């Protein structure tokens, strides 16, 4: 691995000049800006997604975005437009599946529908790729992500859409939390649980489409699930958890971008590896903390309910 790394542009043993060198390349500045926007959006939306036990739905929305991007390339439209259109459309389909509104687990019918939808979407993406000859390398970029060639216009799109998604989440955040932790009580108190879940799925679709442009359709989970899951192992307080989730996502994204710039291996690999490493560390730290305090494990929903 090191032998390979040495043949490409390596560190110059001067961190200050290395970092300033990074910022002289416009594509690298754009990648860092886009990565930052995506990390913040994905971490916040992902925190709610993990709490609502909708990781499978999140993965499926990411996968549905792939034929969108492939189809957009086929008809000569920008790939980001395809990502957004299909991810939001997919969110509406998943929302229409009976039972998806609740965060109840083990609903067999829902998982069969989502699984079928996901595999069919990927197959359709493959069809578009097959119809579009000479697109073979593009497949790997769409699926596994690339930070090369992010334009300034794309950064602005990501920024506007990310702000919009976060604003909607900020508006529905409190009732959504209530509806997630105890849907029955929330419904009895007049919270519109069903509507909230549809709105959340659409926001999730938007966040997934955003993250897909950096991480690719298949690696969205690195930013959507892992920072949130790590944060929720450390704290049961919503605001603190959200902040921690964002912090982890930012660190992972920045590290991933910088390290992959200096190495021949793809960014997706570093992004997922760093995020997974932190996730594993959280298990160890949690275990040590619990042993020291001799506390029984507290679940997040139990804490919020009290």
């Amino acid at each position, binding site marked *: 691995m090191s032998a390979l790394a040495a043949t490409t542009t390596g560190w110059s043993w001067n961190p200050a000049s290395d970092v300033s060198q990074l910022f002289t390349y416009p594509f690298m500045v754009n990648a860092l800006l886009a990565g930052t926007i995506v990390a913040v959006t994905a971490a916040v939306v992902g925190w709610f997604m993990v709490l609502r036990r909708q990781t499978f739905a999140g993965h499926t929305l990411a996968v549905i975005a792939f034929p969108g991007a492939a189809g957009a390339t086929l008809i000569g439209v920008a790939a980001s437009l395809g990502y957004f259109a299909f991810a939001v459309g997919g969110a509406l389909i998943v929302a229409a599946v009976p039972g998806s509104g609740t965060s109840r687990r083990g609903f067999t019918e829902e998982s069969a529908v989502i699984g*079928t939808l996901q595999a*069919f979407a990927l197959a359709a993406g493959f069809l578009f790729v*097959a119809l579009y000859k000479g697109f073979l390398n593009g497949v790997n970029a769409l699926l596994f992500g690339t930070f090369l060639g992010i334009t300034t216009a794309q950064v602005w799109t990501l920024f506007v859409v990310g702000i919009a998604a976060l604003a909607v989440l900020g508006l529905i955040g409190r009732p959504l939390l209530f509806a997630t932790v105890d849907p029955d009580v929330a419904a009895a108190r007049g919270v519109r649980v069903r509507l909230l879940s549809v709105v959340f799925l659409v926001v999730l679709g938007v966040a997934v489409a955003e993250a897909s442009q950096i991480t690719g359709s298949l690696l969205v989970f690195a930013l959507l699930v892992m920072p949130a899951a790590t944060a929720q192992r450390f704290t049961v307080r919503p605001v603190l958890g959200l902040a921690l989730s964002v912090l982890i996502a930012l660190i992972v994204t920045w590290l991933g971008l910088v390290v992959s710039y200096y190495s021949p291996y793809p960014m997706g690999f570093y992004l997922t590896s760093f995020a997974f490493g932190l996730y594993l560390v959280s298990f160890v730290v949690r275990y040590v903390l619990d042993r020291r305090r001799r506390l029984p494990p507290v679940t997040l929903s139990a804490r919020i309910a009290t």
Partner: protein
Amino acid sequence: MFFLATAAGNGLTTFFGHSFIRYGLLAGTFIALACGLVGYFLVLRAQVFTSDALGHVAYTGALAALAFGLDPGVGLFAATVLVALGLAALGSRSRPDDVVIGSVFAWILGLGVFFLTIYTTSRSTGNGSASVNYLFGSIFGLSATQSVLAAIVCGVVSLAVVLIARPLLFASVDEAVAAARGVPVRILGIAFLVLVGVTAAQAAPAVGALLLLGLMAAPGGAAQRLTTRPFVGLAISGAIAVASMWIGVVLSYLVPSMPPSFAVLAVATCSYVAAALVARARRETVPAAQDQPIGRGLRRWVGEALSSSSPTIR
């Protein structure tokens, strides 16, 4: 009439005259059968997400083997079975948490791209289409040995699923009662996941690591919409999967620009939609069945099995 018959006969002769069609159909039939049988239980046990993760593992396993210059079949097999065992060990009651699954398989896919880069940059024999072949499958690219091996392995898996079907149904529908009655629930759960892993390993080169989920979820889901009788459902699930494979292969033969994996998945998806429509129409004509959940027929079956097998308890 006679002319049409000879034309059809000639078409069939040329269709089966291609060795890639014969190999593809031989492997495809048994792969689809195993996927359909395993898929019925995946849907019943709400473990669709687990099989999704195992499909992704298959990709990384194949690419890792290629990167180190090994036979990709070995990598596929080792990776999926090991991760199946790991997932079984991680979860309580052999059913791991979906956040854990999601985190693990995102990282596994990250590793897959890593091995892809090693394979394409450091090995002179590397070719970029290997990645796409394992992600989306190439059923017409199977060699004679590959297809015979896949047929044998998937045949054995199908047989094993049928053999453990009765206790597995019991354990899936009412785990607590099954455990109390001495059914080895945990061992069954592990054995089942290993069978899913083996199926994923065999299905990945043919239908694709990313698409094999559809060949498991769609027939399984369709069968559960159509009937609540467990063994009928199992048979329907296997039949839909095999039919999807055959129709898909013929379609992609007739329309050369259509990849076979897409055709197979499209037929499977259509069968699921059709099953859902049939179930809805039936519910409208028989209002009593309106609020009958999927598991109730199975629970009734378990109840009958209980009362018939040992009248001493209850």
